[in-house]
């Protein structure tokens, strides 16, 4: 198995895949902190599923599925952002947009039934099948997303943990919500390449949720989240290369293992904290 891995690592497409994996993981690790803090897992699902519709739609037209995914999730982000951002309202808006979008996807799929494997790849992830042109697109989107998050990191944090005071201090809370939805859409399009539409939450929830369990220090939590996303993504790709089993299986397993471990050590860190009188 090791031999097989070493052999494969010599191929440039494998190297590209690992590099793309790093970028996807950094994006997912950063974004998942805010997905968890803003309770947006449902929105993540909607962005991914309507992204799937966009992807199949683009395949039908003979265009890039990665671009289709990005288009689908971006449009969904704008629709959700435009229709309602208050929590109660958001929940139902997300649900009905998702249902409509996926309904369209079903139609596209039935029109496109000849190449079902490509659709399956989208659902369960197959970074191995991404074309080199799309890989470039993924890298560009990842860099733009990371830069965007860097620019709005502080006010996004403020608006997330303390929205009332943030608004009073002049943070454009509504604009930030919409910008974050757009970044989230990009992050979804990235992560789908690795784990697929159906397993998207493994990269966009688990790292952030795990980090929250380990530390209350926001900077450290972000770092931990990125590290976990990296571990799951790169570990998943390497294990898949070694065994020829699906990447997404390994990614979800590693991520889940991280979360369970964090839950197990949480009582210990709590006790340490109590001992230090905090």
């Amino acid at each position: 198995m090791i031999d097989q891995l070493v052999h494969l690592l010599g191929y440039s497409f494998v190297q590209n895949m690992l590099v793309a994996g790093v970028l996807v993981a950094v994006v997912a690790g950063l974004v998942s902190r805010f997905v968890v803090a803003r309770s947006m897992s449902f929105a993540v699902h909607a962005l991914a599923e309507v992204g799937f519709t966009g992807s199949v739609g683009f395949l039908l037209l003979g265009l890039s599925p990665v671009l289709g995914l990005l288009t689908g999730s971006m449009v969904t982000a704008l629709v959700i952002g435009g229709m309602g951002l208050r929590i109660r309202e958001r929940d139902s808006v997300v649900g009905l947009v998702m249902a409509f979008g996926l309904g369209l996807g079903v139609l596209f799929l039935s029109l496109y039934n000849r190449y079902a494997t490509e659709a399956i790849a989208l659902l369960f992830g197959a970074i191995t099948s991404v074309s080199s042109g799309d890989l470039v697109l993924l890298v560009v989107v990842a860099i733009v997303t990371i830069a965007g998050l860097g620019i709005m990191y502080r006010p996004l944090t403020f608006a997330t943990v303390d929205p009332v005071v943030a608004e009073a201090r002049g943070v454009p809370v509504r604009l930030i919500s919409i910008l974050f939805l757009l970044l989230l859409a990009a992050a979804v399009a990235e992560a789908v390449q690795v784990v697929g539409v159906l397993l998207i939450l493994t990269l966009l929830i688990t790292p952030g949720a795990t980090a929250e369990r380990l530390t209350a220090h926001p900077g450290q939590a972000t770092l931990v989240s990125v590290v976990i996303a990296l571990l799951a993504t790169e570990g998943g790709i390497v294990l898949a290369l070694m065994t020829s089993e699906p990447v997404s299986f390994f990614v979800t397993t590693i991520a889940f293992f991280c979360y369970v471990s964090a839950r197990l050590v949480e009582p210990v860190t709590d006790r340490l904290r109590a001992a230090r009188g905090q």
Partner: protein
Amino acid sequence: MNADDNRHAPAPAHAPAPAHAPAPAAADNRAPDEEPAMCFDRATLAYGDRVVWSELSMTVPQGEFLAVLGPNGSGKTSLLRALLGLTPLAGGALDVLGKPPRRGNPDIGYVPQHAGFDRDVPLRGRDLVGLGVNGHRWGFGRLSRADKMRVETALDDVQARRYADAPIGRLSGGEQQRLRIAQALVGNPRLLLCDEPLASLDMRYQQEITELIGDWSRQRRGTVVFVTHDVNPVLSYASRVVFVVDGRWAAGRTDDVLTTETMSGLYQAPVEVLRVKGRIVVVGEASGAGLDLDEPHHFPAPTGGHGAHVDRGGHA
């Protein structure tokens, strides 16, 4: 317009000023031509057709401690939102420190109505205060050395150093409230707005928080707007009061507003204001029971009822 006047509680009979004018300020140490901390001029606040309060006029000089009183839903939070520039007035004018209100004014510190932090929110007290320094600025938001010093000083000022590194959601309500105050004061504001900072605190914490805010005001000559259900905990600090009931209001010096005449006018029902052992108790005749100001919603409803009826007065 005249019909409208008696919807507001008139200023106390012995005050020489007309109904809407603020009670004359007693001689104090303020500079003669300093702009007032806030000046409401026939200000009306409404959400769509729902008029919350109308034609409010009051001027509060800097360095004063204004207690904002009134039952739930009377528009106390809305008053703070108007000062913050978050809710525009439907009519009239408002100046804050000599200028129209604007969002993000760094001269204003804000302690919001307490909702309590989620147990698991990954945030320490120190981080909350840090957000008060630069949370509104774009970028990654690393605090400079000087900024970190300001955070430490603010934590010390509210004696919160000890638990500044604990997850904020695990702290008690009083501890969270201290951190909120540090967050509001870290930017060195001239005006501090506090929305029911005593709610859900026990007596000891109520006193501590009140002293913290009152002493800040006295030491820095900062102006405080303090929303509270019960005026008693702040009696020794509150130099002024604005009392809002069903769109009507009464404003002025504490002793002038909390009188039997003014309160009866405000509630449009006979009530009596008693001073018992240093506390103020308002007794409503309708029920015959002694009612504390901390439960003003137990007051007899003014004749004519709530909401729509009073709105009409506001629109007149």
